[in-house]
């Protein structure tokens, strides 16, 4: 007998989300991921001066704001055909990485770990620790990480004036500069963040976490101290205790647009798609509207225009369904790191796809990798040299800005005619991960990850914790998804 389970409002994700499950014999036989809000940001940009995108596009989101600015500036930069000076590149990288780190902390300590403090798990030995450490709005260790997150944002305060939403991120570099004193303050913020991560999160030097390259090395690190010694060990303990690596398998191929280019163009995390990674076949990218409340055939983002239709038959989401060569792709820290060649994540059987465990673990590993890179960028700043170069825009041009938000691949596509924007399309990371079915009926990555999940007979939405772990492991941003 089929039963329906509708989960909403879905808490501790960014923005509005509803998940509808059809259960047959206590197993999910169909999952529908619903974005119940339409925002219409792209039309707001049409007809405006091109640089207005720098003000409007980041306001798509209160959590991926810097990434949206980076993508908009990159698209305009391509249209202007210039390269920022080295200082500007370092500053842009620092801003993006700071937001990425802050988002990873928010995800781990505000969105994901509080689920293990729920009453549902009270019979487990580790539950008391989880409650004291991570209970929503009360956990002591989460509170400490919210303070550390605020400290990370000081870097954005200093280099961009404020978070979220800053115009300091420009095609030509940054409007802000750093003198010899403020360079020291940047490094001092990074020292605080390194200390916080090393003391509370990893109980080890970040370089030791970066060097974990095999499952054996990870097991040895895990066994070296009690689960309660640090957040990462406790998470690894949860993975074992609850078999999180067997939960929420997603086999969609990974996609990363790459991020953090050096002045010589080399990226800290290179771009790619699939197993093994190849260069991205951007020409095969389409946005499918098969199950979206929008009219029109699948179209590439440089041609598509939004025609909302809330009465469309068989549609169930305001999200579009982006596809590469007709296929859904998963994106996020796990995809970014396996494409960048992280040895541990690759050694864990990456060709079989991701799980709740690997998607969340990739965020911890990425935090350990980002701080040393940020320290290098901050040290590379030359206080008396320029952070910005003039970037005059031609009256007619096109531009693509591809980058990585914390939660995955982010792209902006724009066209300029007679000094006005005539096209603007954004494809956000969660649009990939939480896409509805396409016109061929192929479900999106989250819908696939929920398929086949077994749930207890008496399950209620609030007690469907496995569903919540799977959904939150993607770190969705619904606000961006339905811009």
């Amino acid at each position, binding site marked *: 007998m089929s039963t329906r389970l509708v989960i909403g409002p879905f808490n501790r994700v960014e923005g509005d989300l509803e998940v509808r499950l059809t259960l047959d014999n206590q197993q999910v036989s169909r999952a529908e991921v619903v974005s*119940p*809000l339409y925002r219409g940001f792209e039309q707001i940009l049409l007809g405006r001066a091109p640089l207005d995108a720098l*003000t409007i596009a980041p306001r798509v989101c209160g959590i991926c704001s810097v990434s949206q600015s980076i993508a908009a500036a990159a698209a305009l930069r391509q249209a202007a055909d210039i390269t920022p000076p080295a200082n500007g590149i370092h500053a842009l990288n620092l801003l993006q990485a700071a937001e990425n780190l802050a988002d990873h902390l928010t995800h781990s300590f505000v969105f994901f770990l509080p689920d293990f403090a729920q009453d549902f798990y009270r019979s487990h030995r580790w539950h008391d620790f989880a409650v004291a450490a991570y209970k929503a709005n009360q956990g002591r260790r989460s509170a400490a990480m919210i*303070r550390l997150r605020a*400290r990370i944002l000081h870097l954005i305060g*200093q280099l*961009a004036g404020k978070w979220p939403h*800053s115009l*300091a991120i420009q095609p030509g570099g940054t409007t802000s500069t750093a003198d010899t004193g403020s360079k020291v303050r940047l490094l001092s913020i990074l020292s605080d963040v390194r200390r916080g991560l090393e003391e509370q999160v990893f109980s080890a030097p970040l370089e030791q976490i970066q060097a974990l390259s095999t499952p054996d090395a990870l097991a040895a690190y895990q066994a070296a101290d009690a689960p309660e010694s640090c957040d990462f060990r406790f998470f690894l303990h949860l993975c074992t205790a609850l078999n999180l690596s067997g939960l929420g398998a997603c086999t969609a191929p990974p996609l990363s647009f790459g991020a953090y280019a050096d002045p010589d163009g080399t990226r800290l995390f290179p771009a790619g798609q699939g197993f093994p990674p190849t260069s991205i076949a951007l020409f095969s990218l389409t946005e499918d509207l098969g199950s979206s409340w929008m009219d029109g055939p699948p179209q590439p983002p440089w041609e598509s225009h939004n025609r909302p239709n809330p009465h469309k038959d068989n549609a169930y989401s305001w999200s579009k369904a982006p596809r590469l060569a007709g296929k859904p792709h998963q994106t996020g820290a796990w995809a970014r790191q396996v494409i960048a060649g992280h040895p541990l994540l690759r050694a864990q059987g990456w060709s079989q796809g991701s799980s709740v465990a690997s998607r969340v673990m990739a965020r911890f590993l990425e935090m350990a990798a980002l701080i040393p890179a940020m320290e290098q960028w901050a040290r590379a700043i030359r206080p008396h040299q320029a952070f910005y170069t003039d970037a005059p825009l031609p009256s007619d041009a096109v531009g693509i800005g591809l980058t990585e938000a914390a939660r995955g691949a982010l792209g902006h596509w724009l066209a300029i005619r007679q000094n006005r924007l005539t096209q603007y399309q954004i494809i956000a990371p969660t649009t990939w991960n939480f896409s509805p079915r396409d016109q061929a009926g192929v479900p999106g990555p989250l819908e696939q990850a929920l398929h086949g999940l077994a749930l207890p007979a008496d399950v209620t939405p609030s007690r469907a914790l496995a569903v919540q772990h799977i959904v939150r492991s993607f770190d969705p941003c619904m606000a961006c998804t339905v811009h």
Partner: protein
Amino acid sequence: MAALGAEDKGLAAILDDFGLDLLWHPGLSESTGDTCLALLDAILARRQPLDILCIEGALMMGHDGSGAIHRFAGLGLPVIELARQLSAVARHVVAIGSCAAFGGIPAANSASTGATGLHYHGSHRGAGLLPSSWHDPSGLPVINVVGCAPHPGWISETLASLALGDLGRQDLDDFGRPRFFADHLAHHGCGRNEFYEFKASAQAIHQRGCLMENLGCKATQAVGDCSLRQWNGGGSCTNAGTPCIACTMPGFEDPVAPFQETAKVAGIPVGLPVDMPKAWFLALAALSKSATPERVRQNATSHHITIPPARPPARRHED
């Protein structure tokens, strides 16, 4: 999410400090699905008191006034309907951010989405979701904690002031904005103040001069103590070299000129300081421009300070 950085310790910790019990927040609370819906039922049936209702985001009246383009997940009810119902049972209603206050950026496309504010549409009270005459049981209008994003301190201090019983009608300005931040202009405390005084203007966005004359800065017209209290450990838009876009003001989403350009008529900026007579402004600007020290003039168009402050060398007395 701005509030998660409030006072560097987060919204939940601050609410706790002031005895406020956070009933539900979509990004922070534990409950999902049925437990949250049961809480909403209890509030609407007045079994659970609701002291402060905070609404974030523009209210979406589309499609055709139905609110169908924004349904509350799990309930199917248009969010505008839920907002109306909750506003009727709350002791105070607070709009968090310029979207919820005035419509904000989404209101630039209100023709398609019906995006509007809770009490205002742009500067028109009563043209948003709630009628002009709406007030809470204590007589207060919707309290508008404006900004895009609002400063985390504006949010936490407004909520804490309500808990302390300190926020009365006289503490709100004409747009329902708490005066503790709205009595200031974003210009106050701007680190580029000397450039402003001498009308030593930046010509391009990365230069150190005043951003008002050429680069669209509206800090002398926009309320907010941004540069006085500062953001994220010590920043502000203008101090980072970016023009104020007046995000605390109704209608900021549709400026006369592009955001990074100053609208001018016959070479004179259209948007002069909020309460300064135009003739005086022009006279003083001309005077101060003629008195600008070379240091200020040159630094205004440089990306770093090139001339440090120093007295000119003393003239030697020749006998």
